[in-house]
Structures are given as structure tokens and as C-alpha cells.
């Protein structure tokens, strides 16, 4: 007997466990399908040999081990990259500390006294003081360049005297 699409659909719903009203013809077909499925199940049975199951179990262990290893490698690489980044940053900061920072026109310079608060007195105190003086002078030069002529001469005088003091200091410590 040949059923139409709708009839097959109702039978499929019934086979899937839904409550469906079936005609006698549909019920017969459903019973036939159930019998055929049972027959197929008995005929198509194929047991997996122990070797195949053993190989599959081994694949699981290999796959899991591989994943753990990959995760560990990624973690190690990430950690190494982070350490390298910190090192590079540190080196860059050290380089930057040793370089005089240009001061924007009009901004306040760091007075020597304030610098000395942060720097422990010791054997490098003299060169640091010199460096600070140098910075002050550089800042003053920049400020002078932006200053009207009338205000500039007292500052220039002050700078000249500072320069003299610096020369004296260098002579004493040479």
C-alpha cells in the first residue's frame, strides 16, 4: 500500500511518541515499519572489537594530553611575553631617566631643592646637582626666549652669575 506525505507524517509523529489518531491503514504501516526496524537491528548488529575500542580510548588520552600541552605552551609563551614586555618597558624607563626632558615654554621647572628631597645624598650628589643646575639653566633659557626685551635683562644677568658659579664649582671639583 502506498501512503501519501500527510499519512507518513502522522505515522512519524506517532512513532516519535506523540498522541496521533491513525487510520487502520496507517496503523498497519506503522506496525510494518516497527517490524522492519527490529529486523534491521538484528541483522545490522556489529560489535566493536576490543582493539577498536582500545584505540579510541587511547585517542582520547592523546587528545587530552595534547590539549593540556597546548594550553601549557600558550600559558608559558604568554608569561614569557609579559616578562619581556616588562623588561623592555623597564629598560626604556631607565634610558628616559638619564635623558634631560625638554620643558614646555611657560611651565615651571623642578627646583634643585625638590630634586634633592627625592635623591639620597651620597657619592653621586655633585654630578646630580650639576645636572639639576643645568636643567634650571636650560629652562631659564627657554623662558628668556619667550620674554619681552625689557624683562629679559635682569634674568640674563642672573643667568650669567649662575654660569659663573657653575664654572667655579666645576673648577673646584675637577
Amino acid at each position, binding site marked *: 500500500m502506498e501512503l501519501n506525505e500527510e499519512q507518513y*507524517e502522522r505515522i512519524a509523529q506517532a512513532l516519535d511518541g506523540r498522541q496521533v489518531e491513525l487510520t487502520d491503514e496507517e496503523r498497519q504501516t506503522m506496525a510494518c515499519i516497527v517490524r522492519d526496524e527490529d529486523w534491521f537491528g538484528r541483522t545490522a548488529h556489529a560489535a566493536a572489537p576490543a582493539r577498536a*575500542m582500545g584505540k579510541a580510548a587511547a585517542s582520547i588520552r592523546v587528545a587530552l594530553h595534547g590539549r593540556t600541552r597546548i594550553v601549557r605552551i600558550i600559558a608559558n609563551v604568554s608569561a614569557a611575553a609579559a616578562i619581556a614586555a616588562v623588561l623592555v618597558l623597564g629598560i626604556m624607563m631607565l634610558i628616559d631617566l638619564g635623558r634631560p626632558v625638554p620643558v614646555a615654554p611657560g611651565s615651571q621647572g623642578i627646583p634643585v631643592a625638590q630634586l634633592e628631597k627625592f635623591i639620597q645624598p651620597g657619592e653621586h650628589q655633585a654630578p646630580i646637582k650639576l645636572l639639576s643646575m643645568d636643567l634650571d639653566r636650560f629652562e631659564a633659557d627657554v623662558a628668556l626666549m619667550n620674554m619681552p626685551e625689557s624683562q629679559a635683562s635682569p634674568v640674563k644677568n642672573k643667568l650669567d652669575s649662575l654660569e659663573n658659579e657653575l664654572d667655579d664649582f666645576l673648577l673646584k671639583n675637577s
Partner: protein
Amino acid sequence: MEEKPSAAAISQAQTGRAEGFEELLKRYGQRLFGYFLRATGSYHDAEDLLGEMTLRLVRQIKSYDDHGRFEPWLFRIAANLVRDRIRRRKANPTRLSLSAEDESGQSLADDLPDRPSDVADGLMAREMSHKLQQAMNELDETTRNMILLRHFGGLSFKEIADTFDCPLGTALAKVHRGLTTLKKRLEGHKQEIIAEMM
């Protein structure tokens, strides 16, 4: 066939624990092997695909949504593996091992349980298994896969229809006609085998 998958095994597997995967393999390994064997007709391919399946399972288990049924999800992966294997085989045709021994010295018939107490029945079963495989290979790929996913994967007809993107009635009609064809072919072979054994 309607055994419930262990939620604990699935969640263990999802956290990458070997016990979870081993439990899933214990529960579904036989059915997956049967599916691969009947879908490819090759013992060697079935063994190989079962190994590949476990690798896929390890990779994809996290994508399994707990709300859906596990079996359709699992057997869809298996069906994709079979489809890829068949495509590759079509691109590089090699011999099939239906009754002849393959590279590992196994044949399709070798997997059947030995029943030395009844040699005639054993021979009949082996021969029928071989003939079934031949008959299955003559079915179109969709029908064959529907029948196999229904039997080994325990898929409902609704799930089969969704998997093959076809109406529910069409899915059942294909399975019904496919099973009828197989049964007719095998009944004919059975008479021949009985006559040969007499």
C-alpha cells in the same frame, strides 16, 4: 537504544576530564562503531573513524548545548565524518573490504560474534551481514544514512527530518522504503544461501 546519556559524564568531559570521555566512549562506542562500519562497509574505516570521532569529541564537547539531546548531536558529528570519508574515497577510489580482508586482516564479517555451537547459523549470519552491506551500498546515500542514524543514533523521525532538512513525512517514507528494499533483497539472498548450504 533509548539509554539516557549521563549528564555527569558529559559535564566531566566538558571540563576536560578523561573519565567523562571514557564513560561516553563506553556508552556510545559500540553504536558509533556499528554506524561507521555499516556506513562505510569497511572494518578499517570504521576503526579509523571511531578514533577520529573521539578526537572530534574532545575538540567539540564544549559546544554541546545541554538543552538538546546528546545523541543527535553526537551522531551528526559522526555523519559528517562519514560524509567526508566517502567524499575522499570517491576522489581517491580504493577497494572496499566487504568480505575480503583489509590491511589489518579483518573483514566486515569478522566482527560478528562467533557461535561455534551452531556453525550453520554462524555462517548464515555472516553471509547475511555481508549481503546486507551489499544491499545497503545500493541504497542512495541519504536513505542509507537515515536508516543508520535512526538505528545506531536513536534519532527520532523529527530529528532525522531536521538533520536532512526535509519534511517529516518524507523522512519516514524514505526510511520505510529503504527498509522494505533491504528486506526484500536479503530474503532473496537467504533462500540462495540456504540452497547452497544444503
